[in-house]
C-alpha cells in the first residue's frame, strides 16, 4: 500500500536518477527515462490496473495499453502507477477508493484530478514524465494545480486502446512533463494510428520538437471573452497571469485578438450529459461475473443473478461513479434520450462550430486552465456541481476534440501554481507546443520545485 499521501497506488518507485533521464530527454529520447502511468492505463507488468476503484482493486491486465507499449519500445521504464479519481471521475483525486494524493505545493490542497497522481508525481520530481488521461480536463487541470506541463492531444491522435474507458468520445491520453520540450518528445512517441482503436486517425505525426522555435511569429492568438464571464469569475491572479501572457506572446511575435465562443456557457451542461451517458455504458462490464469485485467471491454468499449485479456494483463503485451511472442511464432511457443525450450532442456540435469559426481568424486560443488555483481537501467534495465547474475552461476543447496544453504561468499569493491553457486547431499540436514553449522560455516558472 502507498503511503498516506503518495502520488502512487501500489509500490512507490525508488527516487529516480533524474540526471540520467534529463540527459536523454534533452536529446528528445526516452531511453531509460522513468515514467509513471495513471492507473487507468492498463499494464501487463504484474502491477494492478485498478482505475482507483474497489471494483478493480484486484485486477491485473493481461495486456499493455498501446501508449504503454509505445513508451516501452522507446526505452522508457514504467516505474509506478499513479492515483486518480475513481474511473477518472473527479477533479481532485479525492474520489480515489484506494489512496489519497496531496498537492506537492501544499499538502492541505488537492492535486487536481482526475490525473492527480501523475501531476503530483511529476511536480514532486519523482519522475520526469507521467501519462494521464483527459476526458474533460483531467490532464490540464491537475497540471495547472501542480505547476507542470499537461498536454491533451487532438481526439484520435493517440490510441485509446488500454485506457479504461470513461467517456469514449472524449477520452484521450495526455502527458505530464516539467517542460514543453519533454511534452513534445512524449507526444511524438505515443501519437499515431492504432489498428486496435477505430477512432485513432491515420495522420502524419510531425517532429514536434522541431516545431519549438522559441517564437510565435506570424501566429494570431485569440482570447475568448466568454471565458472571463463565467459564473463565480476567475481568480484575480489568474486573470493577471493571462494579461501578462498576452504581452509575452505579443513580444514573441504573435498578434493577440479578442474572439467569441458564444456557446461556451452550455459546455459544462453538455459535458455532464454526454460523459455520464457514455460512462454508464462503459462501466456496464463491471458486473461481478468475470473479473473485478464480486459478491460471489465470498463462498458463503447466496443470492440471485440480479443480486450479483446489484450488490457487486453497489459495493464496488464509489458514490461519484454511482452518481454518473445513474445520470447517464437516465439520459439514455426511452422517452428521455431525445431531450437529453440527443439534444446534448446537438449542442456539442454548436460548441465545436464556435471553435471552427474562431479558428478561421486565429491560430490558437489563450485561456485560463482553471478558474482558481488548487482548492483544499473537502472544500468541494460534498458539492458535485462546484466540483464540476472546476472543469469549466477545459471541457469545451474536450467536447470539440481539440488539442490543448496547460503550462505553468506563475504563482498566486499563496504560492500555488497557476496554469494557462492554449487550445489549437484539430491536429495542431505542433502550433500549440510552439506557442507554449515560446511562452515558457520567457519565465523560469517551470524550473521551480515544490518545497520538500
Amino acid at each position, binding site marked *: 500500500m502507498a503511503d498516506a499521501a503518495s502520488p502512487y497506488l501500489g509500490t512507490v518507485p525508488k527516487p529516480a536518477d533524474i540526471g540520467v533521464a534529463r540527459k536523454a530527454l534533452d536529446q528528445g529520447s526516452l531511453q531509460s527515462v522513468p515514467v509513471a502511468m495513471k492507473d487507468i*492505463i*492498463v499494464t501487463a507488468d504484474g502491477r494492478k*490496473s485498478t*482505475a482507483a476503484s474497489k471494483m*478493480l482493486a484486484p*485486477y491485473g*491486465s*493481461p*495486456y499493455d*495499453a498501446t501508449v504503454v507499449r509505445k513508451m516501452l519500445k522507446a526505452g522508457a521504464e514504467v516505474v509506478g502507477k499513479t492515483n486518480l479519481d475513481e474511473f477518472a471521475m473527479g477533479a481532485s483525486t479525492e474520489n480515489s477508493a484506494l489512496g489519497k494524493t496531496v498537492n506537492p505545493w501544499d499538502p492541505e490542497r488537492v492535486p487536481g484530478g482526475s490525473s492527480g497522481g501523475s501531476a503530483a508525481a511529476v511536480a514532486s520530481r519523482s519522475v520526469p514524465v507521467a501519462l494521464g488521461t483527459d476526458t474533460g480536463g483531467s490532464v490540464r487541470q491537475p497540471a495547472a494545480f501542480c505547476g507542470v506541463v499537461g498536454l491533451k492531444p487532438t481526439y484520435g491522435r493517440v490510441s*485509446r*486502446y*488500454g*485506457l*479504461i*474507458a470513461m*467517456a*469514449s*468520445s472524449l477520452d484521450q491520453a495526455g502527458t505530464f512533463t516539467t517542460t514543453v520540450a519533454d511534452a513534445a518528445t512524449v507526444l511524438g512517441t505515443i501519437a499515431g494510428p492504432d*489498428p*486496435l*482503436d*477505430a*477512432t485513432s486517425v491515420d495522420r502524419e505525426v510531425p517532429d514536434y520538437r522541431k516545431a519549438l522555435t522559441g517564437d510565435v511569429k506570424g501566429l494570431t492568438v485569440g482570447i475568448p471573452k466568454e471565458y472571463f464571464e463565467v459564473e463565480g469569475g476567475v481568480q484575480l491572479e489568474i486573470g493577471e497571469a493571462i494579461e501578462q501572457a498576452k504581452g509575452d506572446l505579443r513580444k514573441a511575435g504573435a498578434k493577440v485578438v479578442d474572439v467569441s465562443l458564444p456557446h461556451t456557457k452550455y459546455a459544462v451542461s453538455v459535458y455532464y450529459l454526454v460523459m455520464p*451517458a*457514455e460512462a454508464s*455504458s462503459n*462501466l*456496464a*462490464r463491471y*458486473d461481478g*461475473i*468475470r*473479473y473485478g469485485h464480486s459478491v460471489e467471491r465470498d463462498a458463503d454468499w447466496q443470492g440471485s*443473478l440480479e443480486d450479483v*449485479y446489484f450488490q457487486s456494483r453497489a459495493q464496488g463503485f464509489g458514490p461519484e461513479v454511482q452518481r454518473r451511472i445513474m445520470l447517464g*442511464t437516465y439520459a*439514455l*432511457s*426511452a422517452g428521455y*434520450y431525445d431531450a437529453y*443525450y440527443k439534444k446534448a450532442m446537438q449542442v456539442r456540435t454548436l460548441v465545436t462550430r464556435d471553435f471552427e469559426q474562431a479558428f478561421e481568424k486565429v491560430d490558437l486560443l489563450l485561456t485560463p486552465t482553471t478558474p482558481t488555483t488548487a482548492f483544499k481537501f473537502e472544500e468541494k467534495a460534498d458539492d458535485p456541481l462546484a466540483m464540476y465547474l472546476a472543469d469549466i475552461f477545459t471541457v469545451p476543447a474536450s467536447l470539440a476534440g481539440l488539442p490543448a496544453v496547460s503550462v505553468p504561468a506563475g504563482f498566486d499569493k499563496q504560492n500555488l501554481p497557476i496554469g494557462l491553457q492554449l487550445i489549437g486547431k484539430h491536429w495542431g499540436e505542433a502550433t500549440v507546443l510552439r506557442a507554449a514553449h515560446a511562452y515558457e522560455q520567457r519565465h523560469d516558472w517551470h524550473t521551480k520545485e515544490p518545497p520538500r
Partner: protein
Amino acid sequence: MSGASRYEAVIGLEIHVQLRTKSKMFCRCDNQADGAKPNELTCPVCLGLPGALPVPNRTAVEWAIKAALALGCAIPDESKFDRKQYFYPDLPKGYQISQYDQPFGGPGTFEFDMVEDGKTVTKQIGITRLHLEEDAGKLTHPKGADYSLVDLNRAGTPLAEIVTEPDLRSPAEAKRFLQELRRLMRYLGISDADMEKGHLRADANISLRKPGEKKLGTKTELKNLNSFRFVERGLAAEIERQTELLDAGKSVDQETRGFDEDGNRTVSQRGKEEAHDYRYFPEPDIPPLEPKALGIKKLVKGLPELPVEVKRRFITEYGLQPDQAELLTDSLDDVEYFEASLKAAMSGKNKINDRTKAAQNISKIAYGIGRQIMTKKMLNSFMELDWPGSYPSVTGVGARYLASGEYTMSTLNPVMERIWEEDLDPEKTLEKEKPQKLGQSDLDKIIDQAIADNPKPAADFKAGNENAKQVIVGAVMKATKGAANAREVAQLVEKKLS
C-alpha cells in the same frame, strides 16, 4: 387446419444469420468456434476487458452489404453501430454492439418461387431491414449445479439480422422463405446457414385476422425456432392456439412464447410488460461508416446469379422439372457442377445432342448415384460438400452412356460407384464394363422362368391383383442384373399373363 379458413395468419420473421468470416466481428479472434475448448477463442476485446476497443471487421461489413443488396435492400449513404444495453452473463460488455436506426440494409423485397397446389407461384416478401451485430456467448447449466458456465468463444461472432415485413401467410410459406434465405446465404458464400448448428436462427411474429381485414391482430413472438420443422410445427401450433382463443371470444395477449416440441404446443415465456428498455445510443468507439466508400459498385458486380434466377433458368433452359431444378441449384457449387457435367455430356464421341435429355440424365446421376456415394463416403449432408473437380466430367460421360442406351440406371450405378471410389478413367471403364445387350429371346426365357418360379403372384395377377406382377418384374430385373428395362419387362409380363 379448420382455423385456416376462418382466419388469415400474418407472419413476420426475424432471422439471425451467422457470418462465416475468418475472424470475429470486432476483434481478430478465430470465428470458427466448432471444436474449440470453452473460452479458447477469446481476447481482451471479446472478453470485454477494461480498456479494450472494438474494431469492425471489414469483411463482415462488406458481407452484410452484399446480403442486403441480394435481398433488394436500399443501402444508406451513412450507417453506424449502436450499443444495445442489457445485463446478462453471456454479454461481456453489458451491451451488444448492434445497429439501431441506420442499418446497412433499408427496405427491400425478396422474391422466390414455390409450388402451391401443383402450381409454381412467385412470392414477394418485404424486407424491413438488415443490420449487423455481434453474437453473445453461450451459457450452459450443468444438471444439479447451483451455477452456470459461460463460454465466450461465440461472443463477437458477426450476425446479420434480417427482419421481414408481416407478408408471410402460412407456416409452409415461412418455412419456405427460410429455406430460400438459407440458399441465398450459401450462394453469397457468407454463411453456412445451418439451422441445426445455429448459423441461422429464426423468431417469428404471428397474429390472426379475419380474411379481408386490413388491421393486424395482436401478435405473439415465437422464439428460437431452431429447425425448419420447428418453424412449421411451431407456427401451426401457435395458429391453432390463437384460433381457439379467438373462437372462444377471448383475446390474444402480446407476449413472447416458445415452442415445446414434446407437447407440440407453444408456451408463454415473457409478457409485454417485461419488455426491455435497451437504451440504444451511437457506439462512440466506432466512427460512422459510408457504405459507398466501401465500394458498393464492386459488391454489386461481385454478386452471383441469385438462386431464384438460376432455378428459373434451369427450368426454361434445360427443361427440368421444378423439383429437379430445386435440387440442382441448392448451392453455387451444385450449379457449377451441373453445368460442367452438361458440357461434358454434350461433347465427346458419343455426345448427347438433345440438351433436355442430357440435363435429365445428369440430374438422375448427380442426385441418384452421386448422392449415394457422397453420403457413404462422407457421412455428411451432400449439400455442404464440394465436388472434386473431376466429378462433372465423370457425370457427363455417365450421362452419355445412359443416353446411348448401353447402360440403364441400374447397370450404371455400380460402375459409376467404382469409377468415383477408385478414381478410374470414366470412358475406358464404362466401355469395358458395358453390360451385354439382352436379346429378345433371352429376355423371353428369363420372364418365363420368373413366372414359373412365382406361381402365386402369377395367379394373383390373373385374379385381378395388379400389384402382384411386381414380384415377377423384380425377379426378372434381378436375373438380368438390371440390364433390362423395367417398364418393358412389366409390359411383357402383363402380356404373357393375360
